[in-house]
């Protein structure tokens, strides 16, 4: 069997693992049902109470979905690693020929499936309850793809943090995508921030990804080259950091949960 095919199997292994957890664990099932609905309904109802401008409702629908995309693409792989760590099985995974980026891609498969469920929920409810309709599917899907790529980059960073901090990493990992989404102007332009914060926000690929979504409603100027440049920069940093973190964790004996 070729190395590519073996790697493909390991990626599928991770997706299989995550999806079984989601199927069996009510808490994980809520991740694609209850929690996103709470976010979606609270934000859309809030916006709908103050304005009948469909662009504002649309901004909330697309922003909330983009946020969930970032969250799931960031969270799935790290959650898998942490589950194995907490249950005392991490060494059994880490002595296999697994590579860190295979966790990330396995997580991405699971994220795609979960996002399909959430997407149907959000866009369906948005259409039925708030009369929101996607104006340009091509541009909107491009925006969602941009959010997914940002989620993957954040996942790489988070994986590095999990290698280094193990059980203590979880608070950071949970807060990270939400903090980034807020900083990236998920439902508003980043011009609302004071100067230095705004400068920081503009270096985030997530800001550009949300702008791609807002642009489909005529609420921002899309800047694809800027998105690509910031994403590439973050990707390079993330890969370097996680490679270093894995070597450091190996040096410090952190890939094993000792008795």
């Amino acid at each position, binding site marked *: 069997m070729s190395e590519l095919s073996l790697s493909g*199997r390991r990626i599928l292994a991770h997706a299989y693992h995550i999806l079984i957890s989601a199927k069996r664990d009510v808490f994980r099932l809520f991740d694609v049902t209850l929690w996103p609905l709470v976010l979606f309904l609270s934000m859309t109802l809030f916006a709908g109470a103050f304005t009948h401008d469909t662009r504002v409702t649309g901004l909330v629908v697309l922003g909330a979905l983009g946020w969930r995309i970032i969250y799931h693409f960031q969270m799935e792989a790290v959650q898998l690693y942490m589950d194995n760590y907490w*249950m005392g*099985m991490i*060494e059994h995974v880490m002595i*296999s020929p697994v590579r860190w980026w295979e966790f990330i891609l396995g997580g991405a498969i699971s994220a795609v499936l979960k996002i399909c469920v959430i997407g149907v929920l959000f866009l369906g409810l948005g259409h039925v309850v708030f009369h929101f309709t996607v104006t340009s599917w091509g541009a909107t899907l491009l925006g969602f793809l941009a959010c997914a790529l940002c989620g993957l980059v954040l996942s790489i960073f988070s994986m590095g943090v999990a290698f280094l901090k193990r059980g203590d990493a979880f608070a950071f990992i949970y807060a990270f995508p939400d903090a980034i989404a807020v900083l990236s102007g998920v439902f508003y332009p980043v011009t609302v921030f004071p100067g230095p914060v705004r400068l920081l926000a503009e270096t985030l690929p997530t800001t550009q990804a949300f702008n791609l979504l807002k642009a489909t409603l005529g609420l921002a100027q899309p800047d694809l080259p800027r998105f690509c440049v910031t994403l590439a920069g973050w990707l390079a940093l993330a890969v370097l950091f996680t490679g270093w973190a894995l070597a450091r964790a190996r040096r410090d004996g952190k890939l*094993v949960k*000792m008795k």
Partner: protein
Amino acid sequence: MNAVVANNVSKTFRGKRTVAALTDVDLVIGEGEIHGLLGPNGAGKTTLITVLIGLTTPDRGTVQVCGLDVATRLHQVQRMVNLVRGFSGVLEKFTTWELLSYYALLYGVPRSRVREVMALTGITALRDAQVAHFSSGWRQRFFIAKGMINRPKVLFMDEPTVGLDVDAAMAVRDIIRELNRQGCTILLTTHYMREAEELCGRIALIAQGRIVADGSAAELKQRIKSEEAILIAGQLEPALRERLARVPGVLGVAQDPRSCRLLVRDHGTMDPVLRALLDGGARIEAVRFDEPSLEDVFLKLTQKGLAEDQEQDDE
């Protein structure tokens, strides 16, 4: 060819407390061997295993597994080894079939191998049961099945019978023998000396991160051929054990839950030992000479019993 060669391996963990976990460890495990690694808790057994399988990088020294350098060819090494641990946790909500299928995918082996390893370890009937609900004996069978999934050339078994009842431990030992018969090289860590003697062709004794002796059980015992052991039934107070340790001719004292062993120079040491026991106010149930055992070898080389740290842990 040797299955595992460790040369001059040292590892110190630096943190709030600096711990020299391994110091200048040399270890050679021949192909097809069951090699024991015997030592008390905290001696460095698990750290050594994690270094040998590449989960922990040594500060110094080299490790080769199946002729491949672990530092530079880890990915290839990982395909040829596997691990069984005696105190692993297990993911909740997963069935035997699902967890073994996950590992089969990780190693790129077909699902038919999952059926094979379940049959070999006798867990086929538990295919759809959740592993987290297994008793410790059945759980250990599951981990051995998982350890066999990639047909490893070298299997690292870290205290595979710890916490098991007599029947379950015996069943696990039978599986270990069968695996070895099938050509698998095994490194087995344990602090049960009888288990090491029963299963292992060669045994390395490890204490405070150093290999203090390595050889067959007979070779190791040969090292204390001229000495004797005195077995005193029951538990002795620490103060009395210290008193015994100071008796001329006593080379070491080790207490386990049922008896206290004294390694002594010769038969003539019995009289002063008895006097010390009586002076110390001990209630003596039985005292007798015993054949020197691996425990005594360990005692002589380290001045510490194998069970002592275990006893402290239990407390």
